[in-house]
């Protein structure tokens, strides 16, 4: 419980007459940033405490925020079911004045701002950008004489070759819900493309349209042929990653958050990302992705000005960005101020990831972040059914569409 967690906080800053900011953070690297920030700003004391999804799922965060005992700044999912709900409930501070003051509208990547905007107001700043695609073992590809596939047919040939060489071509830990969404959204992007997905999310598009069904069908075919590991529903995300690090599997569809684990423990291995080739001819092929989370300020924060200044320092100073990249291994949602000064401290894969973000085609949607929680539950369940060959692609998408219509009727769809 957050209330309890705040008793065991880490404090930064020692001087008297300080303004206290309670910061609920996710990555341990933030503690280094807090230390640096309070040294630079002796009038600020930061009381830091870790936050997890469970704090919100259990209702502890909401209770603490409503009672005025919660954090002043918190890192939460920039999704309608998380940040959106807190915003609509009036528990978050609208940040529009700070967007104007610090010019954040121009600093943050424009596509990242949709996820922190609810009812036309900004209720957070993006914390990091992530993209999702096949994450592959370059050594296995090299040993097998395989190249990154350019077409979807090449991709299927590649998977068959990997299988014939005794590797699990694609491993995915779909006993956990999130990896189901990651692989499914990649296939939907490859079959329906960003414009159709946008039409679905913000217009009158349908989950059970032929283009969406095609992506689901192709994905299920790969499972049927054991090109995506047939027993993927038996494995967790961690278990599936272990098969990747032990070179039993050649790739997984995951996001750039894996960099933290990879660079911490497996950086000697050679891994990379590639874009899943398009299934439909009229689609260019993109990574999917979006925001992992965002930072919001409590409506009851005592020093919202100071909170905003702290966030601006994190994203818009070279020191803040450097700490994000080198300690947190996360990609800032803003252009890097002086890439030449940080490049030498980055792993080549990080540099590659940052370069790929500049792709003019942009990034497709990781659907699970953009759909309301009521739909997300049905979405995850049905993808598991699809991957377990328990339901047809059409049935899977029909079921999601049904829940989507209910959510639309209840006004839960993000605008």
């Amino acid at each position, binding site marked *: 419980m957050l209330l309890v967690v705040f008793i065991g906080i880490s404090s930064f800053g020692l001087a008297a007459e300080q303004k206290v900011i309670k910061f609920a953070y996710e990555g341990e690297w933030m503690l280094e940033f807090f230390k640096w920030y309070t040294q630079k700003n002796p009038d600020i004391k930061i009381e830091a405490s870790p936050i997890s999804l469970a704090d919100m*799922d259990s*209702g502890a965060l909401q209770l603490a925020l409503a009672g005025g005992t919660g954090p002043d700044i918190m890192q939460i999912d920039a999704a309608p079911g998380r940040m959106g709900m807190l915003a*609509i409930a009036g528990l978050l501070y609208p940040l529009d004045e700070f967007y104007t003051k610090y010019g954040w509208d121009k600093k943050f990547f424009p596509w990242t701002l949709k996820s922190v905007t609810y009812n036309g107001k900004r209720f957070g700043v993006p914390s990091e950008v992530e993209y999702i695609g096949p994450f592959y073992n370059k050594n296995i590809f090299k040993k097998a004489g395989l190249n990154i596939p350019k077409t979807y047919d090449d991709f299927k040939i590649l998977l068959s070759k990997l299988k014939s060489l005794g590797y699990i071509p694609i491993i995915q830990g779909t006993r956990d819900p999130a990896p189901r969404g990651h692989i499914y959204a990649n296939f939907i992007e490859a079959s329906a493309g960003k414009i159709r997905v946008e039409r679905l999310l913000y217009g009158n598009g349908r989950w059970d349209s032929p283009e969406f069904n095609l992506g689901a069908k192709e994905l299920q075919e790969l499972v049927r042929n054991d090109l995506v590991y047939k*027993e993927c529903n038996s494995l967790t995300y961690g278990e599936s990653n272990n098969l990747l690090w032990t070179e*039993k599997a050649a790739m997984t569809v995951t996001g750039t958050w894996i960099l933290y684990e990879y660079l911490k423990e497996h950086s000697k291995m050679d891994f990379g990302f590639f874009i899943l080739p398009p299934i439909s001819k009229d689609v260019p092929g993109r990574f999917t992705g979006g925001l992992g989370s965002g930072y919001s300020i409590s409506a009851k924060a005592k020093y919202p000005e100071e909170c905003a200044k702290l966030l601006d320092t994190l994203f818009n100073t070279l020191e803040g960005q450097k700490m994000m990249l080198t300690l947190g291994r996360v990609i800032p949602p803003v252009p890097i101020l002086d890439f030449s000064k940080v490049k030498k401290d980055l792993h080549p894969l990080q540099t590659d990831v940052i370069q790929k973000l500049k792709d003019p085609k942009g990034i497709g949607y990781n659907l699970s972040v953009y759909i309301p929680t009521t739909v997300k539950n049905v979405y995850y369940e*049905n993808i598991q059914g699809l991957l*377990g060959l328990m339901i047809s692609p059409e049935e899977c998408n029909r079921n999601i569409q049904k829940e989507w219509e209910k959510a639309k009727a209840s006004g839960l769809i993000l605008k």
Partner: protein
Amino acid sequence: MELNIKRKLHKLNLWAYLFILPALIFYSVFTLRPLVQSIILSFYDWDGFNPIKNFIGFTNYKEAFSDPILGLALFNNIKWVIISLILSLGTALLLAVLISRCTIAQSFFRSVLFSPNMLSPMITALIWGRIYDPLIGLINTLLKTIGYGYLAKGWLGSPEWALIAVCIANSWRAYGYYMVLYLAGLQSVDPTLYDAAKVDGANGWQEFLYVTLPSIRSTTTLVLSLALINSLITFDMVWGMTQGGPFHRSEVLSTLVYKTAFASNRVGYGCALSLMQAILIFTITILFIRIRERSEG
């Protein structure tokens, strides 16, 4: 004189109430109040965040009666109850009888066999998750080693096996507790009954059937009702191992309630489901105890 006694009694009652008070406060704050709140919330459409709650009457209950996932969860719960009762109670009774006949190292066996019950459900879920791992798990490795590799599968991802697999793991954790209860019951069996049975020419099986079982009837009633309630409210092991998957095949009432209220943020509907679950458990338990009492009577 009479007045004095009354005063004393009154005084005594007051003391009694004072002693009850702390427990009553805890009970009211942490049990009664949430229960009443749940009943009230079940008539609302509420996401758990918004300050505005929409009163919708019995709509949540109507929806529950037409919810196919609820039907499936209920069916799975019944399957869970049956498998659990057979596995954990069967194992518990068998081991209790065997241990009670041990003349040496009885307390050693009792402690060792009880030890799985001391593990937290999440740790048990992790251990068994590894045992069921499709590639490096103990079960599949064993099957492959003895030439039955074709039987190997992803147990926790299998629509047919997921629920049974979790139930086996749960029974492994649970049997120790019931075993200790049975052991206590067995200690109260009059040993002369066994002597009499032996004189009448009864064999071991007949002794068990006609002496042991009837003598521990009240223990069995207690153990059965405990196991029944535990099975109907089971959550942690299912959540830790499959989260109700794949595609609801191991969904039970508690995981459905949790998903509805906290993952889908449908707190009102979640409350309605949890109340229906509570009524079901209450009814089944009362019915069971009544039936047992009648048969004993």
